[in-house]
């Protein structure tokens, strides 16, 4: 009986504490079919990541930076070296000082960081009605149930209820805490981007793709992590088995 209590208590401590600490605040939506990257064996869908990158590049990047990513990181979502170079060279960066002590402009290289839309926070606020578009590098890890939350925000723009007084310049969103969000619906209609793989760029599809891209951006080593985890746990299970057998045979003679 006491052993049962002890096991029960341990299980409660392990499971319930953090769950209690992180309570969901609003109803979130998961896209049909769920997220390919979730679960023990989940991996990123390279096609979705590339489509999501396109959405970020052509829609989100107008206001949101991704300061923690470099163009070279795109190699791990399936672009080859030349493609990464080509993507980087679309941007110009300021480098220097050169031997004459002057700063100069040059095309971006794979080792450069993603191009930020605004030089600083003040410029970003000035251009966005006083609101500051957050950096998206870690956004999926910085929100509870990050993927569902982001997808729900992106697909959560509806008409405000009649009795709701909206502040000027704010938009109604059914997921955002307080329901008033400064960001206008970024994926306002279908076909904002044209996918090269023939996928139809519906609002939901774009939201799903860009969310997966941002999930990868927040946790680029997730696949390595899960692969190594399987090996580590199998190794530990074998070791535990060996030690248990050793313990059994050793203690058998004793009792």
């Amino acid at each position, binding site marked *: 009986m006491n052993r049962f209590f*002890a096991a029960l208590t341990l299980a409660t401590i392990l499971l319930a504490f953090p769950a209690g*600490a992180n309570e969901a605040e609003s109803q979130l939506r998961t896209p049909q079919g769920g997220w390919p990257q979730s679960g023990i064996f989940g991996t990123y869908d390279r096609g979705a990541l590339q489509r999501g990158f396109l959405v970020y590049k052509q829609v989100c990047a107008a206001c949101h930076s991704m300061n923690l990513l470099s163009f070279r990181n795109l190699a791990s979502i399936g672009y080859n070296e030349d493609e990464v170079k080509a993507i980087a060279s679309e941007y110009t960066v300021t480098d220097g000082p050169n031997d004459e002590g002057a700063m100069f402009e040059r095309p971006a290289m794979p080792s450069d960081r993603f191009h930020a839309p605004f030089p600083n926070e003040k410029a970003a606020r000035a251009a966005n009605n006083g609101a500051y578009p*957050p950096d998206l590098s870690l956004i999926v890890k910085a929100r509870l149930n990050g993927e569902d939350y982001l997808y729900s925000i992106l697909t959560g723009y509806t008409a405000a209820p009649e009795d709701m007084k909206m502040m000027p310049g704010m938009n109604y969103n059914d997921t955002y805490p307080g329901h008033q969000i400064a960001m206008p619906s970024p994926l306002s209609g279908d076909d904002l981007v044209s996918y090269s793989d023939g996928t139809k760029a519906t609002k939901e599809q774009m939201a799903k793709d860009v969310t997966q891209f941002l999930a990868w951006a927040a946790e680029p080593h997730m696949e390595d992590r899960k692969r190594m985890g399987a090996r580590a746990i199998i190794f*530990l299970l074998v070791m535990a088995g060996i030690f248990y057998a050793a*313990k059994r045979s050793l203690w058998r003679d004793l009792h």
Partner: protein
Amino acid sequence: MAGNTTPTDFGNPVINWIDKRLPVFTMMQKEYGVFPTPRNFNYLWNFGAIAMVMLMVMIASGLVLAMHYTADTKLSFNVVERIMRDVDYGWLVRYIHMNGASMFFIAVYVHIFRGLYYGSYKQPRELLWILGVLILLLMMATAFMGYVLPWGQMSFWGATVITNLFSAIPLIGDTIVTWLWGGFSVDNPTLTRFFALHFLLPFVILGVVFLHIAALHVSGSNNPLGIEPKSDKDTVPFSPYYTVKDLFGVCVFLIIYAAFVFYAPNYMGHPDNYTPANPMVTPPHIVPEWYFLPFYAILRSFTIDIVIPFTDIIIISSKLGGVLLMFGSIAMMFILPWLDTSPVRSARFRPLYQKFFWLHLAVCITLGFMGAKPPEGIYTVISQICTFLYFAHYLIVLPLLNKYEKPLPLPPSIHEAILAQKK
């Protein structure tokens, strides 16, 4: 110790040569080889070894992290992300360290409650127990300061809330807080000193752990029956019997640890800490790491100012009251050996104490849940009831049990108890 150890023959001339001059091998042989250990440990006795392994894991992973870390409010957040993204296996080391803190606390909490259940704090192990409580305090300080280092939102606001507790000290409180911060708010000087202390304290813990084990090897281990071993029949040599059993226990624990590191590395963390610290934006709920939640609930349960009647003069502000209660909750553990003077150690033979033990555990867990909730409405009431029950356990229940509890008869010896159980 001085020179009178009989040299042991280890069969290897090099080892013999060293041992004659510095008897470390003789010591290891005595303390971990043939060390007589009660033969009736259950698996709860694994958690001492597990905690030791966790301390080693934390020091090793922390050392690697420190090589790549920079303590600077402008750099720290991105430097940690650089470890996560660009340092070879940096993500692994960082997740090992991050989840290791939680696993270390799990191991230590099980270790503590095991001690409570089987009366391991009683004569002659009072100092051993007190050293253990000291380790817990040092761990709490270390974990708190370590959580500040990534300089995320919870790092900053957690540091602000906790350091502000010291401002509750009458008269000199504000001065102390300024001194702790090295400025007028949590800022760069706070971060750099927290990093220095976070690096130092684990080695202080290691020192106290050494004393904890030294004291253990004087009194010997307690055991589930709570009676002292009387003859050789009651004990087994520590090695190989308990080295192998501990290795098995450590492996099982590491499996759970690995499951978190590899498959749910952020489960025990808080999403807000992936947002860089911003002194201008307060998160809606400032919540400490889960292992502090019971203490956090006790802290917040004191909600009224105590005033001199018919005046406005506050004797104990709600803040000071909460701080006193929180430190008092740990002080209870320091004086526990003198609160519970029942000569019977193990709860197996104390029918009433056993029930109150489970109640006490339930109270601590409930406090943990309440610590995660906003301090309002029913949550505050539950916290207050549980805080009362927490202190009542030590200050009312235990002294009363000393007087009125009738313990069950103790078995004559460990091996006879084992034989009786087998029949």
